[in-house]
C-alpha cells in the first residue's frame, strides 16, 4: 500500500492497473482490492476525484428515469442500494430529501404519467403524482405557475468528494497502490501491458480503462474504436447557506424533447445548487464557466425559485460529462487482450459506481480471470463534512478530548484546525488547497478566503515557502512536500477517517 505523487513507478508487474481515479475507477480499485491481487490505481491529476467526479449535481439517483432494460438502468438501481448502505457505514453524508419533478406547462404535466410508467419499468414503484396545492404546501417558495409534480421520494443528495475519497482510501488501506500525477501517455502492444506514463513505464497483466473523458483515447491505444467521448459541459451555481431554507426537495425538471433542463437542489453542505447547463463541446479541458451559461441558469432559477436569486452566490463550477454517441454505458471486456473499458458514464456514475465495480468483477471472472477469494473487511469511517450529522465544532466530547476541534479556522464552513490537521495526515492527503477543501470544506464558504484564505494556506504549507495561491492550487505542485509531511506527521487524531 502506497500513495505516490512523484518519481518513477515500482518495477513490478501489477495484476491489475486501473486508469483513472474518479469515482468509477476508485470504486473498481476498492472492489478489486478485496482480492489477493497487486492493484495500482493511476491518475493524471494530483488528487483522486479531481475531474468530473468533483463537479456534478451530487445526487444519489433511484434510476426512475433511466432507459428501461439498459445496463445503466440496472447498475444505477443496484448502485443506489449499494452506495446508500455503504455511505451509512462509511460516514459519507447522504440526505434522503426526495425529488419533485415540477411541471410548468401542460406538456410537462401530460408527461408525468408516462414517467410513472417508466419508473415502474425501472423497478421503482414509489413515485406519486401530486397536484399544485400539495406541491406548494411542500415547497412554499416555488415560483408561481407550477401545475403539478411527480414525487420521487427515493432521490437523495450525497457528498461526491467523500464518496470517491472513501473508495480510494479503502483500496489503499487494502494494499492497492495509488499513483497520482501519473498521466498515461501510451499503451504498448505486448503482454503484460506496458504503459507509458509521464512518470515512466508501468506494467500490468490486466488493464482497466476508467479514464472518463479520455477513455476513448486509451481504448484506441488498445486497438478499439467503439466510441468517441464528446464532453458535455454542465455549469452550476452554488448559493449561500442562507438560501437552504428556501427548498426542501430536489426540484427536477420534467425531461422533454428539448432536453433535461435545470434543477435546484440542496447540498449536503447546506447550500443550494442551481444547474446544470448541457453544452456539447470538443475541448476536454473546458471546465470554465461562461457569462451565457450563468445568465441562462439565473433565468431558469428565477422561474423555479425566485427568492434564490436574491441570495449570494458562494461558488460557480463546471464539470464535463463523458457523453458518447450511445445513450447507454460502454462497458466492454476484451478477454484476449486482458483489458476492460468502462466508458460513457455520463451523469449517473456516482450513483452506479459500486454496481459498476461489481459488474467489472463479474466480467473479469466470466473472461476467465482468476481473481482469488475476496476477503471481507470493515468499511473505512470518513470524517463527516455534511450538515445533517454533528460536525466537530458542535461536539463537546470531541473538543474536550482535543481542543483543536474547537479551534475554528474557516468560519463560513466552521472547519476546525483539528479537521484540517487530520486531512493533511490522512491516508490520501490533499496535494492542493482545493483538495483540502474537498476533504474538509475549508475555504469553501461564502467568503471564499476573505477571512481564512491566508490561514488555511499557512496550515497547508507550514514552511511558508509556497505561494499564497489565492484560490485553487495548481495541479501536482506540492506533491513531494505533501507526502513527506504526511509521513512525518506524528500528531495523533481522534478523527482521521474515523468520524462521528
Amino acid at each position, binding site marked *: 500500500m502506497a500513495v505516490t505523487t512523484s518519481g518513477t513507478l515500482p518495477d513490478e508487474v501489477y495484476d491489475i492497473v486501473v486508469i483513472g481515479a474518479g469515482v468509477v475507477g476508485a470504486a473498481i480499485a476498492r472492489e478489486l482490492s478485496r482480492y489477493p491481487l497487486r492493484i495500482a490505481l493511476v491518475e493524471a491529476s494530483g488528487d483522486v476525484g479531481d475531474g468530473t467526479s468533483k463537479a456534478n449535481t451530487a445526487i444519489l439517483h433511484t434510476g426512475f428515469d433511466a432507459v428501461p432494460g439498459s445496463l445503466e438502468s440496472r447498475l444505477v438501481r443496484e448502485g443506489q442500494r449499494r452506495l446508500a448502505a455503504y455511505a451509512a457505514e462509511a460516514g459519507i453524508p447522504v440526505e434522503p430529501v426526495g425529488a419533485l419533478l415540477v411541471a410548468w406547462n401542460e406538456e410537462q404535466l401530460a408527461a408525468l404519467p408516462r414517467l410513472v410508467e417508466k419508473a415502474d419499468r425501472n423497478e421503482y414503484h414509489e413515485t406519486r403524482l401530486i397536484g399544485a396545492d400539495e406541491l406548494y404546501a411542500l415547497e412554499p417558495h416555488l415560483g408561481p405557475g407550477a401545475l403539478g409534480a411527480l414525487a420521487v421520494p427515493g432521490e437523495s443528495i450525497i457528498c461526491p468528494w467523500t464518496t470517491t475519497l472513501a473508495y480510494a482510501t479503502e483500496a489503499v488501506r487494502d494494499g492497492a497502490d495509488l499513483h497520482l500525477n501519473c498521466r498515461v501517455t501510451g499503451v504498448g502492444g505486448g503482454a503484460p501491458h506496458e504503459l507509458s506514463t509521464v512518470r515512466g513505464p508501468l506494467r500490468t497483466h490486466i488493464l482497466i480503462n476508467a479514464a472518463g473523458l479520455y477513455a476513448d483515447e486509451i481504448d484506441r491505444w488498445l486497438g478499439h474504436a467503439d466510441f468517441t467521448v464528446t464532453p458535455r459541459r454542465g455549469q452550476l451555481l*452554488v448559493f449561500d447557506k*442562507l438560501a437552504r431554507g428556501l427548498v426542501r426537495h430536489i426540484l427536477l425538471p420534467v425531461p422533454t424533447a428539448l432536453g433535461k433542463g435545470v434543477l435546484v437542489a440542496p447540498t449536503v453542505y447546506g447550500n443550494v445548487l442551481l444547474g446544470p447547463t448541457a453544452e456539447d463541446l470538443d475541448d476536454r*479541458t473546458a*471546465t*470554465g*464557466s*461562461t*457569462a451565457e*451559461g*450563468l445568465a441562462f441558469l439565473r433565468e431558469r432559477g428565477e422561474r423555479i425559485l425566485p427568492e434564490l436569486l436574491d441570495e*449570494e*452566490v*458562494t*461558488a*460557480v*463550477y463546471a464539470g464535463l460529462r463523458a457523453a458518447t454517441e450511445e445513450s447507454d454505458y460502454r462497458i466492454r471486456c476484451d478477454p484476449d487482450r486482458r483489458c476492460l473499458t468502462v466508458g460513457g458514464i455520463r451523469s449517473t456514475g456516482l450513483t452506479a459506481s459500486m454496481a459498476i465495480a461489481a459488474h467489472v468483477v463479474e466480467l473479469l471472472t466470466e473472461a476467465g480471470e482468476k481473481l482469488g477469494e475476496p476477503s471481507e473487511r470493515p468499511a473505512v469511517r470518513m470524517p463527516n463534512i455534511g450538515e445533517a450529522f454533528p460536525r466537530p*465544532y*458542535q*461536539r*463537546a*466530547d470531541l*473538543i*474536550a478530548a482535543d*481542543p*483543536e476541534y*474547537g*479551534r*475554528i479556522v474557516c*468560519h463560513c464552513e*466552521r472547519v476546525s484546525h483539528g479537521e484540517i490537521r487530520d486531512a493533511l495526515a490522512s491516508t490520501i492527503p490533499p496535494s492542493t*488547497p482545493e483538495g483540502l477543501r474537498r476533504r474538509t470544506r475549508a475555504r469553501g464558504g*461564502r*467568503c*471564499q*478566503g*476573505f*477571512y481564512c*484564505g*491566508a*490561514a488555511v*494556506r*499557512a496550515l497547508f504549507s507550514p514552511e*511558508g515557502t*509556497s*505561494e*499564497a*495561491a*489565492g*484560490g*485553487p*492550487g*495548481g*495541479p501536482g*505542485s506540492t506533491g513531494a512536500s505533501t507526502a513527506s509531511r504526511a509521513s512525518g506527521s506524528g500528531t495523533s487524531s481522534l478523527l482521521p477517517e474515523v468520524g462521528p
Partner: protein
Amino acid sequence: MSATNRDGLAAPGPGRRTRAVDVLVIGAGPAGLAAAARLAAAGAGTVEVVDREEQAGGVPRHCYHSGFGLRELRRPMSGPAYARHWCELAAGAGATVRTGVSVTGWAEQPGRGTLALDTTSPAGLERITAGAVVLATGARERPRSARLVPGTRPAGVFTTGELQQAVHLRHQRVGTRALVVGAEPVGYSAVRTLRGAGVEIAAMVTDQPRHQTSWASGLGARLHHRVPLLTGTTVTGLLGRGRLAGVALRHRDGRTTTVACDTVVFTGDWIPDHELARLGGIELDRGTRGPAVDTAFRTAAAGVFAVGNLLHAVEPAGTAAREGTLVAVPVLRHLADGAWPGGQVPVEVDAPLRWVAPNRIDPRGPRPPLGRFTLRTTRTAGRLSALVISQDGRFLHRERLRRGSVPNRPLYASADWIDGADPHGGPVVITAG
C-alpha cells in the same frame, strides 16, 4: 421536542456550559471594541466581546497603511496600531475580550425574551445569555464567485482582505504581476500591499467612469506607483489552468483585451456579514443588506443592537468606532428599563440611490450620528444634483449635493427633517433629484 429550562430555552446539548453576562458584543473590530469600552466604563456590568479570529481588532489588523485614527484620535496610526488602541481601551475599561470564540447561533429566536447565543471555542461549547446583544460582525468583500465572473478557477485570485492577511500577517508570496479590480479606497490599499510585496501591477480597472478615491490617492497611484487606471471597463473572464494566466476585459465601447497576469485582486463590493442576524430572524434592510436599525442602533429584535460596517458596508473604521461609542447610551437605557420601541418608520431610497443608514426612524428618538444619514448611489451625478426626502408624497426636505455623487463614496443627508415626519405615516423615501 427537547426539554426546556427555567428560562424557557431549549436545554443546551450535552457538555454545553451556560453563562450569563450583561452585554455580549459580537465582533472585536473597532465598532465592537468601542462599544465594549464605553459600556464597561459606564458601569454596564459584565461586558464581554467575543471574536472568532485569534486576534482582536477586526479588519484594521491587516491594513498596514496609515491614516487610521486621524479624525477621532487626532493622530495618524497604522491599522494594527489602531486595532491595538481599541483592544487596550476595551480591556482597560474592564470589558472581557475573548478571541477564538465563534458564535454559531441563537438558542432561540431573539426578541422574544431571553437572549442566548451558542459558541464554540477550544475551551468547549457555551451558551451565553445576555441582557443586551450588540452585533458588530462587520463586512467582507464579495469574492469572484459572488460577482459571477466567468472563466476558469485558477489560483491567484484574491480579495483585498485575503491579500492583506497573506502578505502582512502570514508573509506569503503572492505573485509577480497583478490586476486590481475596483478603484475605491480599498483598491488603492490593495495597490500599496501589492507594491510592498514586490508585485508589479498591470492595471486597475473599474466599471465606473472615474476612480472613487481621493484625488491625492488616485494621483499618487498613477504617478508614484505608475498604475494605469482603466475606467468603464468590466472583467469578463479569468483565464488559465492551475495558475491564473490572464484576465479578459471589455471596455464600455465594446473593445476587448486580455491582460496577462498571475494575480487578480477583487476589491470593494462589500456585503455585510449578516449571517448571525439572519439566523436570528432579525429583519434586514433591503438596501444595505445589514440589519434594519433606528437612530439608536436598535434592530427589530428587542435587546439586539447593531453597529459598524454590518450596517453600512463600508464606512471608515473611525465611523464604525464612533457608532460603537454611541450605542452605549441606548444599551444602558435598555438594560435599565427593558423598553423597546415598536412601529418605527422605515427610511427607503429610490434608484439610483442604493441604500441609506440608519434606515428606521422614531420621530421621538435621537438624531443619527453627527445628525446625518449616510447613503450610497449607483450613479455618478453632477454638482447640481440633490436629495429629496418625502413621506406619503409630502415633501420633507431637499438637500443639495455640493460635490455631486459618486458610487462607492458616501453621500450625506441631514436629519433635520425628522421632527416633521409623521410617526404613524408610511415610509420616508429619499430620491435623487
